[in-house]
């Protein structure tokens, strides 16, 4: 299947309030084409909510409810389970909608983590999409648990001291039916994963890497370029897993097997204003070496995890 063969269904109408170059809108368009019309989406406070339009207007064509920040796991799980009861009892007829969350890294890694972990352990029946732009971009770029080391945010004004947690792996270790990572730079890989998830029942988690031109400080036209570089450097790993069994995908598999050499991190990070302080630092070389070593270590770790 090629990109031009995808459904003409659009989850977003023209007129969204999102920034130019916004990765979340690109991601929503792709997942919508895979999920189809019969869906219910839950959104926690994020750019995806702030940019959707003021009441009673909306730029979204899917049924959606804006919920509280820590609620994603329980609300989607509760709605899916309630729908199951309503269809079983004959109170609703037809095909049961697919329930999904469209939630940022804050609502996934940080404030929503407890609810999501509980939900994964219970194997609630929905797809959680984490659109990971590595910061609280909606509130003006504060650090989150997904912000990488040395990145500037307004709450890590000297550069973040520690790196991000491996959230998708943490979700995989709950042993749910499906966990995957994806990138906007590889849209057909994302599409395939969403389509696959759609046909599985139980808890499904797909995390999409979302280079945010506003918070990361790069030109809006470079969102896809940045997405590809993240994968090609090994900074973002593509993989999928079922019931804890992990498989590396695409470029990431090639990097792990040594069939491809990773592109240098310097080329990727230099394009991002959020690393400007690191590049001006006298310890620049040391910090870059540390970043590259951590990426190599993480790649080896995940390759080893894939062998289990």
């Amino acid at each position, binding site marked *: 299947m090629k990109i031009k063969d995808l459904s003409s269904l659009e989850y977003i109408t023209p007129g969204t309030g999102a920034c130019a170059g916004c990765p979340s809108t690109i991601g929503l368009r792709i997942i919508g084409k895979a999920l189809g*019309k*019969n*869906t*219910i989406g*839950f959104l926690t406070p994020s750019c995806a*909510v*702030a940019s*959707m*339009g*003021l*009441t*009673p*207007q*909306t730029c*979204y064509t*899917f*049924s*959606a*409810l*804006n*919920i*509280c920040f*820590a*609620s994603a*796991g*329980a*609300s*989607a*799980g*509760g*709605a899916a*389970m*309630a*729908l*199951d*009861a*309503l269809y*079983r*009892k004959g*109170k*609703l007829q*037809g095909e049961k*909608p697919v329930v999904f969350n469209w939630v940022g890294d804050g609502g996934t890694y940080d404030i929503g983590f*407890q*609810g999501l*972990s*509980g*939900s994964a*352990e*219970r194997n*609630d029946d929905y797809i959680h999409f984490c659109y990971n732009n590595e910061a609280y971009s909606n509130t003006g770029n504060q650090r989150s648990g997904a912000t990488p080391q040395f990145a500037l945010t307004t709450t890590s004004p000297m550069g973040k001291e520690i790196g991000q947690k491996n959230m998708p792996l943490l979700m995989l270790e709950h042993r749910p039916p499906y966990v995957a990572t994806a990138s906007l730079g590889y849209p057909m890989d994302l599409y395939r994963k969403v389509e696959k998830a759609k046909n599985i029942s139980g808890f499904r988690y797909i995390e999409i890497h979302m280079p945010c031109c506003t918070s990361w400080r790069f030109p809006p036209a470079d969102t896809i370029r940045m997405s590809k570089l993240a994968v090609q450097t090994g900074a973002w790993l593509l993989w999928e897993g079922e019931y804890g069994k992990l498989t590396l995908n695409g470029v990431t598999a090639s990097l792990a097997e040594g069939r491809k050499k990773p592109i240098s991190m310097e080329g990727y990070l230099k394009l991002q204003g959020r690393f400007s302080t690191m590049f001006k630092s006298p310890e620049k070389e040391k910090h870059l070496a540390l970043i590259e070593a951590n990426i190599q270590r993480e790649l080896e770790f995940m390759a080893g995890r894939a062998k289990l």
Partner: protein
Amino acid sequence: MSKVFGSGNTACALAVKDADVDFVAAYPITPQTAVAEKIAAYIAEGIMDANYLPVESEHSAASAIAAASAVGARVFTATASQGLLYMHEILHYAAGGRLPMVMANVNRAVNAPWCLYADHQDAVSQRDTGWIHIHTASNQEIYDSILLAFKVTEEVQIPVMVNYDGFLVSHSMMPFETLDENKIKEYLPPFNPSWRLHPQWGGTFGNVTYSEQYVPYRESLTRDVKKAGEVIVRCAKEYQELTGRWHGGYFDVYRLEDASFFLLSMGSMGKEMELAVDLLRKEGIPAAGLRLRVFCPFPKEELSVLLPDGAKLLVFDRNLVYGSAAGVLLQESRAALYERRDDLRITGISVGLGGEDLPAVLLADRARQMIQEVEK
């Protein structure tokens, strides 16, 4: 109709079973736990057709039933104390979102320090969330009020909290009667929501507003909370016609005839207060009991109507407004009766905190002290 000898928690769980609830999410907390357990057992035994989400927290219990209500399910949860406090954010969200929901709150003291016993601090701390609060005092009243709460919440589209005192009621065995299925269906027809979060209906909900949109939402909520009081009284009367059972409207009143001292309280204390009124009457003190059933919306006018000229209102709060004379009931009463400040005398105390035992002799004694104060 069948007779049951069971605890308050059993009465609550049986009412939820009988109300054809579609979805329950719950997290265990003393003294509510038996409700979460019994409903799970009814579903497992196949005598209740609902789905049950054993969530990892109360915040998630409230989040789950709010979303389930949005897709059009009849929903229930139960909690107590810290659990209710942990739900606080979602309580505001659910009322603002006009999501019909019923919750049982088994009143218990709040931390710190830890205390497991009856206290209304948990519930009164949720006064300003937009929820409707009903306080009950017997296992029969719990059973009947849960059914009533579903009827009310689905009509007014505002969530309802049914309260009963931890251990004193939740764990006390009392005889009570359930209702036949056909009578329940007559009283509480299947939930037919005015909208659903569902692709057949479409739309996105809870979008961002500016103040010009926000204000009308808030105005309609406060107007409808006020109106919900009348709906509660009407639904209670309909229930009385169907079953013969009556626990009161806004108030459960006791020995109003020729009374000039009115002892106002909520929950199980309000039942014990009837014995205190009897003790005072024996001494020739013209006392009456007012057990408040509807805390939110606070029945301002209805309280005033109950009080004749020159009446003395003695308020017993099982909660504290820190740094003030007593609790929330005293403040609400004074605010409600401000126009009659030259006519009435109002005083109050906080008693029974953390489950402190409140026998009738103690309540009568406190009443005498307050009478001395207002008669000065």
